[in-house]
């Protein structure tokens, strides 16, 4: 038993350092095996190519050259980029507005609303997409009902130019509540004395929201935006589930992840699929860093 000592022990002895590694090690193993490993293996695979009529051949970076000149991949990237640029502001607007309103109103309806708005997060994306697919259907959903009321024919949302809007709606529905709760929790952390000071200065509720609340939850907003961006660029589950209902509008290369999936599991082109996955990862890294740079909050996040 060591004698009590006045020496600061925070800088750690060798034994303490080893213990630190011990705590981190289990996660570290999983990290190496299931994150670093697949990344390395994917890169290795992506350097080869296998044809149906030929064997496996080393092609170096040939797959990447092909990927970045592949119209299917590039169109998929364009789609998810455009989709993100349109979707994320809409999601943020809805979540922010809801959180701000809920911060002010404290009736029972408000508490109930807070819960109900969050419920879609508990619904798996796959099932949410399925439900909206039915709702969009002119025969299964209420849109057909409304159209019949007005004696017009219902538009087939998934089978037309409205597909973009249809998907926007599904994703907003799924995630707005989750983001709202995060913003709401951040709002709860603001010192109310700020509001009192603002009232004394004559500010009304709108001005308080704009000038005080939003800036104070800024870092939470940026965090959400980054995760929303990463998630949306990986768009997969909803369009995959809705493909049968889209009469071919959701193509096999609709998003880069869907393209990679089909390359691997429909056409058995695992090498090229790995290259596409890597290429998507590169696109996401670039997009996130560009975004962080533009929002100039790099320092605060890390």
């Amino acid at each position, binding site marked *: 038993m060591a004698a009590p000592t006045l020496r600061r022990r925070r800088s750690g002895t060798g034994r303490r350092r080893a213990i630190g590694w011990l*705590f981190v090690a289990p996660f570290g193993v999983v*990290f190496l095996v299931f994150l670093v490993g697949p990344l390395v*293996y994917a890169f290795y695979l992506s350097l080869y190519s296998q044809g149906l009529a030929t064997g496996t051949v080393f092609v170096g970076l040939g797959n990447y050259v092909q990927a970045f000149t592949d119209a299917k991949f590039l169109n998929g990237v364009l789609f998810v980029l455009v989709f993100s640029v349109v979707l994320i502001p809409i999601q943020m607007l809805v979540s922010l507005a809801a959180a701000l309103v809920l911060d002010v109103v404290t009736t029972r309806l408000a508490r109930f609303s807070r819960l109900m708005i969050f419920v879609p997060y508990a*619904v798996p994306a796959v099932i949410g997409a399925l439900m909206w697919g039915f709702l969009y259907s002119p025969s299964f959903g209420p849109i057909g009902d409304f159209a019949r009321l007005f004696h017009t024919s219902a538009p087939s949302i998934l089978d037309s130019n409205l597909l973009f809007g249809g998907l926007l709606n599904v994703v907003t529905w799924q995630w707005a509540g989750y983001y709202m709760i*995060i913003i709401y929790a*951040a709002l709860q952390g603001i010192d*109310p*004395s700020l509001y009192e000071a603002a009232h004394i200065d004559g500010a009304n509720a709108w001005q308080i929201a704009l000038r005080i609340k939003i800036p104070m939850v800024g870092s939470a907003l940026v965090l959400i935006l980054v995760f929303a961006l990463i998630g949306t660029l990986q768009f997969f589950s909803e369009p995959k589930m809705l493909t*049968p209902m889209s009469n071919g509008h959701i193509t096999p290369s609709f998003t880069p992840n869907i393209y990679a999936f089909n390359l691997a599991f429909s056409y058995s082109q695992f090498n090229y699929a790995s290259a596409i996955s890597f290429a998507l990862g590169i696109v996401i890294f670039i997009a996130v860093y560009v975004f962080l740079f533009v929002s100039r909050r790099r320092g605060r996040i890390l």
Partner: protein
Amino acid sequence: MTAIANGRTAARSSGRAATGRRIARRRPQVGAHVFLLVLVVYFLMPLWWVIVASTKDAHGLFAGSAGTLWFDKNFHLIQNLQLLFTYDQGIYLRWLGNSAMYALAGGLGATILAVLAGYGFAKYDFQGRSFSFALLLGSVMVPLTALVIPTFMMLSQVHLTDTVWAVILPSLLNPFGVYLMRVYIADAVPDELLDAARVDGAGEARTFFRVAFPLMRPAVVTVLLLSIVGTWNNYFLPLAVLSSSKLFPITVGLGLWEGLASSNSGTGTVSLWTVIVTGSLVAVIPLIIAFLALQRYWQGGLAIGSLK
């Protein structure tokens, strides 16, 4: 301004109620309530549709008597449920069980790993700590779905595809959970407490369990909930690594039925659409109940991630 600088560290609960009361004394805020009502209707409508649709039979689904948002004249819910649970030898219940197993095993496992690693990062100063942590942060940005295909390839090399481990093992990876735990522990577990325990002769393990862990509970619950929900909702990974339908989680199972129903081939005398709709209803109920029951925990917990 001092007020703003102190804003984040001031006590959170003081004055909240006072502000609320003050504002409530003003106009009745009809606009805000209407807005909230619209949101509630929007967010609940699909669930309402699923409830109504689950009470209809195939004919009612395709050509119901009262439109699509209200009940048909035949109330078929019990029959639909019976059909759902007996279709194809009761595989639906199997799928539900699988989802629960993956979610709990994967979620629990991921949480344990995240808690341990977060504690290690926060409270021990070891060589390579900052490098490892930076690596961790970078990995949060790696699109996890981009890992699925090479993970499949790796698993197939060791003949682990189409087993439960193919889903559970990759689900143990939760870098964001480690980040959350590290942030929380750094704030919530004071070094002095740990030192005091060590001075009293406690080993590292006992220090962790007896002193540190009780202080981490809100964050642990948050990470646990997020991990469980994430694994329960996972679609891409199990779709890629599983091919036996008996191992499917509910997400992949319903996807399989949707493919069958959409394919232009006879499925016998059962219209799969009724089973799919009813199956969707039953699949969302567990998580919704869990969320409603545990709201106290996650509502507080999600604050941790947003505050820095």
